[in-house]
């Protein structure tokens, strides 16, 4: 219990439990009613609003903001949920700075967009806080659809199918639904068990059964699904993790960032989680940022994120990069990892800016965050991912071709697949 940021090695309790809890609680506080009204008043109610165009789920943003401004946040929430049933989570995790808020005309006008994400959270939290579900199912069709994967794509697809009157069974390999919302999002972005509460709220639509601990390829096959159901939706995400293929990768202290992030999400008391003193994160996406920032929040002394290409190539947004640096993370650009050095455990990582410009970073923990990949191809591939439709099987979310790997994109793809399935099932 007497550990500190300076304690060498991978150890727990670098900070007191209360300090860690505080660190993870204060990312983006919710707007109160007055703040929401003030923020909503800034919206210009644009014609054919650019924010809507840049939202993958095409939420009618000016309308829902006007509904907040006129004191009807429940109506605002319905506007949001009609397009994006996971609007609550998206309000927390969307990179709004590269989507709706980047497109906001006030960003162009004064560099301060309307706080669309925070307003969306205000509206959705208000309605969800009442514990009611705003939609009722259409007349039942008697059709049954299988959804594989209870992540954002699968849940959005299941909800829309249930809404349209179909019965849905969702098969989830993990023991808990939510997918990346539950296991892949930085803990400080979705506090208070929000992902689980959101799933519970979503299921109030009725007609959806979730079978957890049920894995494609192990517990059932594609042909069994196709035989038993009228249609199948695959929202299986990217279960595999890319490897560095470098010497030393199997040393103790080297692990996948996604596992660390999942562990953090599931830990009640995060101070019990061990973290290194000198942490090196290899990668340049959101997973890398989340691993780096959270290492810092746990009390790591030195956290360095190393990306092999230039700053403007980084998939983490400038906003996220600044968030990382303000948390105390150092970001190095244009440095290629060459080898991981150590006897039994990692001691350092060697990088190179060029063949002649080589340096090493001291490290007792290394997180690999260089992308995820499909582990199998249950239907035909489209490049490294799955085709969007093959007969009566649809795919959406991170596992499917096209679109960015974002929660909001997964929701849009799941929803749209459900509409397509509905059209096909109704002939």
């Amino acid at each position, binding site marked *: 219990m007497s550990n500190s940021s300076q304690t060498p090695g991978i150890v727990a309790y670098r900070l007191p439990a209360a300090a860690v809890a505080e660190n993870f609680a204060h990312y983006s506080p919710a707007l109160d009613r007055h703040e929401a*009204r*003030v923020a909503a*008043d*800034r919206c*210009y109610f*644009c*014609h054919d609003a650019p924010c809507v165009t840049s939202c993958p789920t095409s939420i009618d943003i000016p309308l829902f903001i006007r509904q907040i401004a006129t004191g009807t946040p429940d109506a605002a929430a319905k506007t949001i949920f009609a397009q994006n049933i996971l609007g609550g989570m998206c309000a927390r995790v969307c990179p709004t700075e590269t989507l709706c808020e980047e497109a906001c*005309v006030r960003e162009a*006008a004064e560099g301060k967009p309307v706080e669309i994400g925070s307003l969306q959270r205000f509206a959705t939290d208000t309605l969800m806080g009442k514990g009611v579900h705003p939609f009722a199912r259409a007349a039942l069709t008697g059709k049954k659809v299988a959804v594989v994967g209870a992540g954002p794509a699968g849940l959005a697809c299941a909800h829309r199918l249930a809404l349209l009157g179909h019965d849905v069974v969702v098969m989830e390999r993990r023991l808990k639904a939510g997918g990346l919302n539950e296991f892949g999002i930085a803990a400080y972005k979705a506090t208070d068990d929000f992902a689980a509460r959101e799933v519970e709220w979503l299921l109030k639509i009725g007609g959806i059964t979730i079978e957890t601990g049920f894995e494609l390829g192990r517990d059932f096959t594609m042909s069994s699904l196709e035989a038993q159901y009228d249609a199948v939706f695959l929202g299986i995400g990217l279960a595999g993790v890319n490897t560095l293929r470098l010497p030393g990768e199997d040393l103790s202290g080297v692990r996948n960032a996604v596992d660390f992030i999942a562990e953090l999400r599931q830990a009640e008391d995060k101070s019990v989680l061990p973290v290194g003193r000198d942490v090196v994160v290899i990668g340049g996406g959101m997973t890398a940022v989340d691993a780096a920032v959270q290492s810092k929040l746990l009390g790591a002394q030195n956290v360095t994120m190393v990306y092999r290409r230039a700053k403007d190539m980084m998939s983490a947004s400038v906003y996220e990069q600044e968030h990382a640096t303000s948390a105390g993370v150092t970001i190095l650009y244009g440095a290629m990892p060459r080898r991981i050095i150590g006897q039994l455990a990692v001691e350092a990582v060697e990088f190179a800016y060029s063949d002649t410009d080589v340096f090493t970073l001291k490290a007792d923990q290394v997180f690999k965050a260089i992308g995820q990949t499909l582990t199998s191809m249950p239907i035909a591939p489209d490049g490294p991912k799955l085709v969007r439709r093959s007969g009566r099987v649809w795919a959406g979310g991170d596992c499917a071709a096209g679109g960015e790997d974002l929660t909001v994109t997964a929701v849009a793809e799941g929803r749209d697949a459900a509409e397509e399935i509905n059209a096909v099932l109704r002939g």
Partner: protein
Amino acid sequence: MANLTSAFIGIKSPNPFWLASAPPTDKEYNVRRAYEAGWGGVVWKTLGSEGPPVVNVNGPRYGAIWGADRRLLGLNNIELITDRPLEVNLREIKMVKRDYKDRALIISLMVPCDEESWQDILARLEDTEADGVELNFGCPHGMAERGMGSAVGQVPEYIEMVTRWVKKHSRMPCIVKLTPNISDIRKPAAAAKAGGADAVSLINTINSITGVDLDNFAPLPTIDGKGTHGGYCGPAVKPIALNMVAEIARDADTRGLPISGIGGITTWRDAAEFLALGAGNVQVCTAAMTYGFKVVQEMISGLSDYLDGHDMGLSDLVGRAVPNVTDWQFLNLNYVTKAKIDPDACIKCGRCYAACEDTSHQAIAIKPGRVFEVMDDECVACNLCVDVCPVEDCITMVEMPQGAVDPRTGRTVGGYANWTTHPNNPGVKAAE
């Protein structure tokens, strides 16, 4: 620093900003603090006859409407005249005036509509050394039901009669405060002039209900489940007041009658606009009730800078816009303008497009990249796009030179011509 000294109907004050007769001027404590904050004068809250004072409700007296960020745009009240004894008010007025000889102090009055009542109250004011009286013929609530306030102000004959009594029984300058709750403001103003008034002040408040409680189905503000109309004031009423001031300033019967301008004055600019339309000074209430007495300091600095910037004295500004207020029929129908959108200033919100496309003349095109462009062959120059654009000066109205061809009508832009000679005017044909 421009000289803002004012001598409105001979009453000297260091600046033209007076506090109107209202809650802020109800007692010595307030008025002293108002003078200390810089107000040039006050009109003491309306006094009534001797005897038991009126009583006010014990529930809410004010209702409001708000703009963005709860900015108060309009205020309404159901407060009556002073509810403190006459002798207390008179004693305080005397003490305050003794200490602030350089400031204007006017006493607002409202007594029953008989000569004896007016003669009595005027006699009581004699030794206060107040600078003048203002006759409250304006309040639309409570007192009107007792035959006073706007009940008098809505009948020009009564205005003239009472004004005459006041001039007969007092040597004090007399300002008649007018109610806007009337169809033609020029009639009561002319009546005041005929009765010998030294000036009129306007507008008093407008009959109003600020809102409805949609859970209890009662007007706002609500007293024990009921509500009544109150007097509306604040920024929202300014355009109505400006028009009424201008009407009096330009009417042949009332031209030259000094006007104390009142109605939603919140900033120096509002005040300057009233002055330009013919007001000799201004009175303020809601701005002080919203922000406190200190607002006068911005009004003083702003008006001073404006006058200095235009190399004008205060008297140069008064009435300067009046000659340019005219009737619709005299507007130049050959003045042709076209809206022009500055693409560099445009933030691409598209509000001009929505407004023009949905509600006006379909004269704005969206080009690739959300570039909004006015189609001159459709634009009637209505100005709606300018009004809804959130960026100041992004859209401007550009005048077409004489001799140019208006692409909308195909006609050459000519010299001045108005409706009175227009071929479509049936009046012109009838005269033939």
